[in-house]
């Protein structure tokens, strides 16, 4: 869009300049005579093709009586007519067409003119007057979500003490903000400043809320939308507001700014971007009156590798091409391939959550079939552990607190999830079955989600996050600070869940022993909390879809969600699965898709989503594609170019094993069975169906807290409690010393210490020990008081307490 309007005049002394050309944005402006000015941005294109902001360009108007340049460098319209402004810098110039028209005969408006000032000067920040109870008696809505309420509070509340129509200058509103009277929030602007004058003019005009027929703000735009920068470059953004009547205003000084990656680039309160010293891509966010736009910041790598490096990299599927493309832009070379042993351990833990056995490791390493990695992936996808691992992942998103909704219904949900993954139910169908679930909580697993979340608002907020990757929580109370979502969007989405009938005992914690039946019944309207208006069910960020009047609207919602064209649904799930395989989502956090939090590799997430949809929402297909990619099979050992890369998949990122997988790994390695309350001895931790089953181990390793509401964030960080537990727990020692455990069996066997060490390495790490490792491990057998049993226990202790065991690498 930015390129369209630019008109560049050829320059005379081009040869002398380091810039090939100079341009000005916008190419043309339309101004109201006697009203606020409009600034412009002058850029020069250097010989390397970088556009650079040119500070202090000289601006000259050819019709200074029509349009002139003010002290801030803005173009100001004086009387109707046309003018041309020439911007000269670096010996070159660009021109800009100015049209000045008579200002519309329109007075000041609270909505249009005053709220932006209150927002920009920070009056309605969460820590100031937008606190839940306001500040010192004066309350504004956060991010101005309730303009009518704000108008009331400024003009009428407190018996109108904040405004003094007879002497506008004496209004408390102005005196506080300028610190004429004591103000805890300090001075917000000076007397005579632009903000001051705006407020004063509005006070003088009688403080109207709006003007008849005033234009509506439709969108904002940012210049530049995208730019390649050199390190350390500075770029002032230009934010323009576009109104329903075609009016365009420069609102840069009224906008607020944020950067999503402050290492890459920062942005100050005036909207000046300062680029850091790293190569990469990020966005800065501009916000004005609930509208959000981004400007993309690209800092190309300084040292790039030749094309041949990337051309020669092996490509297993489209993932590799798209990742390499990105790496090339960033000047990163990927790590080399992981070893077969590493691959076996990694992919087994990722797909089924189970350590490979010594036999599997020997067989896989010794297999000469060039297609053995792909064959292994296929085998794992049919392994019974698959359903248990992935049902557990979804349980993190869905599983309610059994002490709230009842044990049986939680158990049934768990069964249903395991069954769905066992049968590889297409993902669209699985989600549809949850979203439209009805019936008895004692008969049909998914129903319990509606027993747990009882208000349409709670269901909508939850589902949009877990199934669509859109966090609407903010928009429940006010406009989302970094996204387009407003309260209307939130409550329109909640309205999908208004027609849910519930019959039965309801929640009677702590037991909730009785069942509840969920069915379709016309329910109460969901209303907008500010306007009180009844909300119609409308999908997120799009036009309404037809909703039949006499049947459950959830069916129509499921149709929209699982439609192949849905922009959120497939992307959200492929990102989740990707994150499970790489420890890092293409969007992070995995359920926080928004313009201001863009994917690190947009083509990649698009291609994955498209492939997933084309293949019938088949999760196994998606996992197979990921696991077969060369990128998934890279080593975790970095090279000089990718050591700092943590989001472009140029190497494998190490991940601590999740709680249940870790416990199963310990149990498999020690061959000492686990036991959980109410489950048969020998049950696996990935088969636990309830976070309340007591386990110090699982708690230490960050299993979700069953008392918290899902989606449950898992703490995947290592911690001192984990280290203490692994090193000193009586329970772990008991597993090592178990009479029927691996140590005891090996001790009683005829194997030599060296064979034993080999066995332990293959079982724990899926690889053969190196000669030096054997030598060190054997010392355990020769201690003065060592027996075969204690020596084996001690080696095993050392292995499970090592990073190579605790991490997937």
């Amino acid at each position, binding site marked *: 869009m930015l390129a369209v309007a630019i008109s560049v005049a050829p320059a005379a002394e081009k040869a002398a300049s380091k810039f090939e050309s100079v341009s000005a944005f916008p190419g043309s402006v339309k101004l109201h005579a006697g009203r606020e000015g409009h600034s412009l941005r002058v850029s020069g294109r250097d010989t390397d093709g970088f556009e650079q902001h040119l500070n202090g360009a000289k601006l000259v108007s050819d019709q200074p009586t029509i349009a002139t340049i003010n002290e801030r460098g803005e173009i100001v319209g004086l009387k109707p007519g046309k003018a041309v402004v020439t911007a000269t810098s670096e010996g070159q110039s660009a021109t800009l067409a100015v049209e000045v028209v008579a200002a519309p005969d329109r007075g000041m408006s609270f909505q249009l003119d005053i709220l932006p000032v209150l927002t920009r000067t920070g009056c309605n920040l969460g820590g100031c007057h937008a606190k839940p109870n306001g500040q010192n008696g004066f309350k504004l809505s956060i991010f101005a979500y309730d303009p009518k309420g704000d108008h009331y509070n400024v003009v009428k509340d407190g018996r109108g003490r904040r405004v003094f129509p007879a002497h506008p200058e004496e209004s408390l509103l102005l005196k506080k903000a300028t610190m004429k009277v004591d103000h805890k929030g300090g001075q917000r602007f000076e007397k005579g400043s632009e903000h001051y004058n705006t407020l004063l003019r509005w006070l003088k005009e009688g403080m109207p809320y709006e003007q008849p027929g005033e234009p509506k703000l439709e969108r904002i735009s940012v210049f530049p939308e995208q730019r390649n920068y050199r390190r350390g470059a500075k770029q002032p953004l230009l934010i323009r507001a576009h109104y329903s009547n075609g009016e365009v205003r420069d609102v840069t000084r009224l906008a607020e700014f944020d950067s999503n990656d402050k290492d890459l680039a920062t942005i100050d309160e005036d909207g000046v971007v300062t680029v850091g010293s790293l190569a990469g891509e990020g966005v800065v966010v501009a916000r004005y009156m609930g509208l959000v736009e981004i400007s993309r910041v690209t800092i190309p790598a300084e040292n790039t590798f030749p094309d041949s490096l990337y051309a020669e990299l092996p490509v297993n599927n489209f993932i590799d091409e798209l990742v390499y493309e990105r790496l090339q832009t960033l000047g990163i070379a990927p790590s080399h391939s992981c070893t077969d042993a590493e691959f076996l351990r990694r992919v087994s833990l990722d797909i089924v959550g189970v350590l490979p056995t010594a036999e599997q490791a020997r067989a896989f390493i010794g297999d000469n079939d060039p297609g053995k990695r792909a064959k292994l992936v296929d085998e794992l996808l049919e392994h019974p552990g698959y359903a248990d691992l992935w049902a557990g992942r979804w349980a993190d998103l869905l599983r309610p*607190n059994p002490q709230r909704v009842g044990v049986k219904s939680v158990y049934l949900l768990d069964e249903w999830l395991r069954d769905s993954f066992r049968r590889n139910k297409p993902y669209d169908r699985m989600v549809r079955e949850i979203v439209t679930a009805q019936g008895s909580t004692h008969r049909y697993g998914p129903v319990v989600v509606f027993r747990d979340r009882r208000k349409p608002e709670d269901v909508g907020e939850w589902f949009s996050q877990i199934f669509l990757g859109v966090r609407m*929580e903010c928009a429940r109370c006010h406009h989302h600070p970094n996204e387009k979502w407003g309260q209307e969007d939130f409550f329109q989405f909640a309205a999908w869940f208004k027609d849910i009938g519930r019959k039965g005992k309801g929640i009677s914690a*702590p037991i909730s022993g009785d069942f509840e039946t969920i069915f379709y019944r016309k329910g109460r309207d969901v209303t907008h909390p500010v306007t009180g208006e009844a909300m119609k069910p409308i999908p997120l960020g799009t036009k309404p879809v037809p909703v039949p009047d006499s049947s459950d609207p959830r069916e129509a919602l499921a149709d929209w969600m699982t439609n192949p064209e849905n922009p959120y649904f497939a992307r959200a799930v492929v990102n989740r699965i990707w994150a499970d395989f790489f420890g890092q989502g293409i969007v992070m956090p995995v359920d926080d898709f928004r313009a201001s939090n863009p994917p690190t590799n947009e083509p990649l997430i698009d291609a994955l989503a498209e492939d997933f949809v084309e293949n019938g929402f088949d999760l196994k297909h998606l996992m197979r594609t990921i696991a077969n990619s060369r990128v998934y099979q890279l080593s975790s050992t970095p090279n000089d170019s990718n*050591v700092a890369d943590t989001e472009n998949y140029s190497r494998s990122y190490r991940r601590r094993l999740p709680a249940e997988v870790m416990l199963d790994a310990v149990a498999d390695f020690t061959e000492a069975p686990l036991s959980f309350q109410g489950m048969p001895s020998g049950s696996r931790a990935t088969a636990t169906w309830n976070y309340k089953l007591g386990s110090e181990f699982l*708690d230490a390793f960050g299993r979700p*807290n069953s*008392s918290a509401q899902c989606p449950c964030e898992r703490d995947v960080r290592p911690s001192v409690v984990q280290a203490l537990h692994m090193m000193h727990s*009586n329970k772990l020692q008991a597993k090592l010393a178990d009479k029927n455990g691996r140590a005891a069996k090996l001790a009683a066997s005829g194997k030599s210490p060296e064979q034993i060490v080999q066995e332990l390495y293959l079982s724990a790490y899926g690889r053969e020990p190196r000669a030096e490792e054997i030598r060190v491990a054997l010392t355990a057998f020769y201690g003065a008081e060592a027996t075969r049993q204690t020596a084996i226990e001690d080696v095993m202790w*050392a292995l499970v307490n090592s990073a190579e065991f605790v991490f997937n690498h």
Partner: protein
Amino acid sequence: MTGINSNCAGQSRRDFIRLGLGGAAGLGFSDLLRLRANAAAATGQSSPNNVNCILVWLDGGPSHYETFDPKPEAPDGVRGELKSIKTSVPGTHFCETVPELAKVADKMTIIRSIAHKDPNHGGGNHYMMTGAPTPVPVGCGSFVTFHPSFGSTVSYHRGVKNGLPAYMTLDRVSRSGGPNFLGAQHAPFVIGGDPNRDDFQVRDVVLPREISEGRAENRRALRASLDQLERIHHKAAADPTVGFDSFYQQGVGLVTSREAQAAFDISKEDPKVREKYGRHSLGQRLLMARRLAEVGVSFTTIYYGGWDHHTKIFTSLPKHIKPLDQGVAALISDLDERGMLDNTMVIVLGEFGRTPKINKDAGRDHWPHAMSVLMAGAGIPGGQIVGATDVKGYHASENIYSPEDFAFSLYTKMGVDPTTVLHKNTGRPVQLVNGGAPIKELFV
């Protein structure tokens, strides 16, 4: 915040000397203890950052009538069957159920005027363990968490030092005692078991019984040479195995620190002291908490449930309170005698008080409109009663404080800024304490 804890330079110094003499093993752990003591000695006063807390959680909601707020003037049907007794503070009376605490009333403050509006266990627990009400009504049996508990917040604020988790709980976690969005590493470290038993061991911080020190050392040496996965030390690489190593080092430091190990071994305590706390599970848990505070555990919760006296309160409560009376009184005296009271805050509370009207089963039901909270140490004045309930004990009626005020005060005492804004994992800002103001009587 300095100046809030203003007294007793001498005791801080004594603290320093005692710890200094004990510091034989020159490891990081002892250094930490010495540093803390040094800091206290240098400033001549305890700093809120040195204050540790022992919180006794009376799950179920103890009656205020039958503990610290007897109402001998109240009419029949409200007054109850138990008498009030004099305390060591002239003019202050407790119920006859707490004779030992009455003797040390001069070392504590009783707040009689904390009130809120949640009469359910689930909600009341949450309010009094986190300082935040539940955003939705929560039933009586519910275990819920919407906000980080006091202990988790203190852990988040202070972090793990030298392998010692900052937040521990004996012998089980209370309903809302978890970390919520602060993450599992700030969950309470649960020390199960009964310290009154001979075979009691604090889990995970001491070697398993069958593992000798020599064998443990061999194991660690073996691990050091076998843990071969290459570490990526470049900071930007964000390699989690680097943090993993530092946690292991801390864990080793803890298990090889003679002082820390001695602290965990309650059998090393003078038998007379053990008797004083009472040779019962609660008494020994309280003693264990003191020992944990000595080695720098920032926040220890003692769980002591069984206060939901809907029936026969006049016979069951006096029995149930006996170990508490003995143990907490011993704890406060002991801390005082050891010069630890300045740096240790003792809090005893439940989720609410109980109904004025005695019900048909000779019990009292849930009543959040008045409750009594015991607080001692950390510069909290002794012999003080804060606020009051009306003459019949229905409502807090003077200097009424909210759970938010209580949370504000607790955090201030521990050097945590109560106006901190935390962020949930959705990025949403959350006030650590929503409003609230210090309970001024605790800061005189």
